[in-house]
């Protein structure tokens, strides 16, 4: 379970202070598809970054299964990202000069896994997203949907329990987007916790948990079971 407790996040953009999150308190259940929605600048991605230890809160606490993520050291946060979470980004964020296979195996290599094991698992992951025949292609030779599937394969390579996806269908056509959505939903069925930031109402309709953010605050919280969140 991911718990945000009175979380604030303030950025400095030049001389301007941006209050991205202002006292967010919310709980995202395990093994569910949680969707975070809201207008641009509402703090959706910031919330996702805090959940994935890409960033730390200015104030407040973020817990994942009892671990205070804000208290982790830089190394602890890196290890958390390596072992417990997988990211999927709107812009795919693949390393352009590496093949699909090498992009996928990198997280394992960073954990000093043997090259042969990394290669095998990367191949399995690519096969799982139906890209086994495209593994030696560089990202520039892949379509948007294929790139996103490579990104999903990479996010799954360490078998993390938490998948964080930031606008995963934002750069894809409707059909490919639906395919990606199905892929994410299948992950939930396999016991993963999937948190998706999106503007896509179709994904929202599939959500087990829906968080609506506005101006850095939780405007509404609902679950498929009817539970209301705190605002």
């Amino acid at each position, binding site marked *: 379970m991911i718990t945000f407790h009175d979380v604030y996040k303030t950025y400095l953009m030049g001389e301007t202070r941006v209050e991205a999150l202002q006292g967010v308190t919310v709980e995202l259940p395990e093994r569910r598809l949680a969707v975070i929605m809201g207008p641009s600048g509402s703090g959706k991605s910031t919330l996702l*970054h805090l959940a*994935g230890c*890409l*960033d730390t809160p200015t104030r407040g606490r973020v817990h994942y299964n009892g671990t205070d993520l804000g208290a982790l050291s*830089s*190394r602890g946060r*890196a*290890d958390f*990202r*390596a*072992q417990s979470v997988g*990211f999927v*980004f709107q812009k795919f*964020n*693949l*390393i*352009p*000069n*590496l093949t699909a296979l*090498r992009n996928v195996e*990198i*997280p394992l*290599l*960073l*954990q*000093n896994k043997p*090259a042969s094991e990394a290669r095998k698992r990367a191949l399995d992951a690519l096969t799982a997203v139906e890209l086994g025949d495209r593994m030696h292609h560089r990202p520039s030779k892949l379509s948007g949907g294929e790139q996103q599937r490579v990104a999903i394969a*990479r996010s799954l390579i*360490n078998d993390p329990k938490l998948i964080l996806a930031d606008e995963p269908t934002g750069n894809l056509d409707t059909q490919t987007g639906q395919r990606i959505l199905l892929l994410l939903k299948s992950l939930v069925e396999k016991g993963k916790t999937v948190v998706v930031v999106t503007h896509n109402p179709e994904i929202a309709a599939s959500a087990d948990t829906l968080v609506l953010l506005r101006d850095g605050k939780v405007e509404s919280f609902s679950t498929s079971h009817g539970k209301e969140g705190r605002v």
Partner: protein
Amino acid sequence: MTLHLIKLAINNIRSRRTRSWLTILGVLIGVTAVVSLLSIGTGVEQAVLQQFKDIGYDIIVITSGGAGRAFAGRAMGGPGLDGPPDGADTALPESNGAFVPGQTGQAATTTSGTSSTGRTFSPGQIGASSSTTAANSSATAAAQASTRAESVVDTAALLKAVPGLVEAGNLGTRVVSVDGPSASGFLRVTTPSLSFLTAFPSILGGFKIASGTTFTNTTENEVVIGARSAGSLGVNVGDALTVDGNEFTVVGILAPSKATSAESSAAANGTRNGTTRAVTSTVGGISGGASLLARGMTNTDDSLFVLQERAVSLWSSQAANSFTIVRMATGVKVAEVMTNISAELAAQGVKATPVSVQQIAASIQGTLGMIETVLASIAAVALIVGGVGLMNTMYTSVLERTREIGILKAVGARDGQVMALFLVDSGLMGLIGGVLGLVLGGVLSFFGTRLLGPALGVGSFQPVFGATLIVGVLVASFVIGALSGAWPAWRASRLNPVEALAAE
């Protein structure tokens, strides 16, 4: 992980091929400069020291004071090759065009002149101060008048008076007018004593007789002649030569010296430069012996040889241009021997200074070491410039790869791993530059020594690539590469993942 980092780094270098190669080129140039200069420098040092070793560290050179001492340093091949000699040579009249420029290392002949043979022989040894045969007599007279007459060291008495000496011999030199069957002109005559020829033939390139015999006695006017001079003058064994107005008989012709081809090549190219002069003249008070020994006196091709015992009786000023070489017994104290020699020289009334080969070698070694250090420092600057170029590339690379750094961090890369990736990247480029620079420097060194050997007067020599140089260069190039990338790498490692991912 290191292997994976290296693979990633190689991948990155390959993906930015042009810039990577340009960066590597910067390091390559620096390493090439360091390698070639150091290997050539060490090669020169070893070649020079080998010459001293060949002569023997048990040798002491006694050079006469003042002008005589300086002259001794140019005894063989010095004046004509390095510029106008002092004393007699500078007193020679101006050239009338009979001298053929560019043939400084060998006898030059002309078809004009006023000699009895109808040809003027103007040897290279005289260099820029070439002369006319019309002025031969007056020039010689002037030359002789300008040198101070000093006593020749009595080597027999010296050996007797100084314990620890086993051999001694005198060697002199002067410029004389020569009339031969085919040509006439000025030539250097070298005047070894009989004891010198017996004890130190190696200093005269072995003094190997190709035809005829060596000197048969000290009372006859006998001359042994160098191979090239014999050809230029057109003489054979048994022919007569007029040397400074005295009739001499050619009793022997020497075999061509080993230095012939090298020196003539250098002379033809006009590359006889000042480096040797720098080496031999910067050692101050011992320049005479240094020059004498460093050059090995191996080029006997352009000289005439007359026994000193005969020369002294014929030419009163001969003593001014002579010096003495003695050999010590094994195990004697050099300082003590030197003191005793000085005392004996004073007793003989000879104004001369003893200098040991050890002193000369140490002094030259010090000078060469200093030159080497200066050259290496200059080369190191080139290497540092290459390093700065590498730093610039790495800094730019960090800026360009900010998003990639964000991705790596998002998938679990630690700060240290990101830093290591960039360090390996820059270190690898440094290492590649180092390896290529080592190869190129080696190739340049081999060509360089071919050109420099003759020019420096040390014959052919090999560049020296010690294990220290090779390993040192490789380690240094990797370290410089890594250090150059250290700051950009540190910057990369400190990037906030979210900000890095947001970079375009």
